[in-house]
């Protein structure tokens, strides 16, 4: 089992917005996020998937071995949340993936990867 625990910060979310080119204000502007019914800025789902993919790549023996990865964005992650990202072997060339917050809620579901062993 490969695991990484990350506490999200507004700075990391802003850095991801800049690097990915996803400047949706729900990730950057607390006032705007509240105006559309969110508690404040939220992390990009793709930031969560990106962290989970690094864990999956490590479990697969390197990024070049990854063949497929899929997730469902099931829960919001806000600054201050701590998420545990985990990859568990699930048969030949398969990984079961999970991302669970500090309250035990899955923020990514239906998460899995295939790799070349």
């Amino acid at each position, binding site marked *: 089992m490969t695991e*990484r625990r*990350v506490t999200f910060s507004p700075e*990391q979310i802003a*850095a*991801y917005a*800049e*690097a*990915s*080119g*996803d400047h*949706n204000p729900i990730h950057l502007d607390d006032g705007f996020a509240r105006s*559309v019914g969110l508690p404040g800025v939220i992390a990009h*789902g*793709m*930031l969560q*998937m*990106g*962290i989970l*993919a*690094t864990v*999956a*790549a490590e479990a697969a023996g390197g*990024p*070049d071995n*990854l*063949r*497929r*990865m*899929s*997730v*469902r*964005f099931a829960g919001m992650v806000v600054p201050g949340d701590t998420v545990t990202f985990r990859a568990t072997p699930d048969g030949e060339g398969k990984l079961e993936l999970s991302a669970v917050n500090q309250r035990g809620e899955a923020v990514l579901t*239906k998460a899995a990867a295939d790799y070349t062993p």
Partner: protein
Amino acid sequence: MAAVAGKTYPAVQIEIDTERVADFARAIGSNPSDGVPPTFAAVYSLGATVPQLFGDQDAAVDFARLLHAEQEFEWQRQPRVGETLTSVGRVASDTSRRGMRFVTFESETTDADGAALCKSRALFVIRS
């Protein structure tokens, strides 16, 4: 409601830029010396093509009501820094039920030789 299933957008070329890859790697807590992070496909495959969908008046996607619900990537290989890739976006399906619109947007990325490199599949849910 506009339904644009089957619509394919013009090809987009994108270079895998050293600095952008390093910034992306740092943002996800990865080591830039480990090469191009797998989900940099969010930039060269999905990110290169999806603005065409969002900017398409025929598709009429209300960005403010849009939720990225699911994402899948399939890789033939990971790209190298300095490569120029080509990505083509396509609306694989576009359906509505119970006041929600479900758009599956696929992007296929090929390398300079035309060989398949990555396929992205995004499911967007748009509340009405």
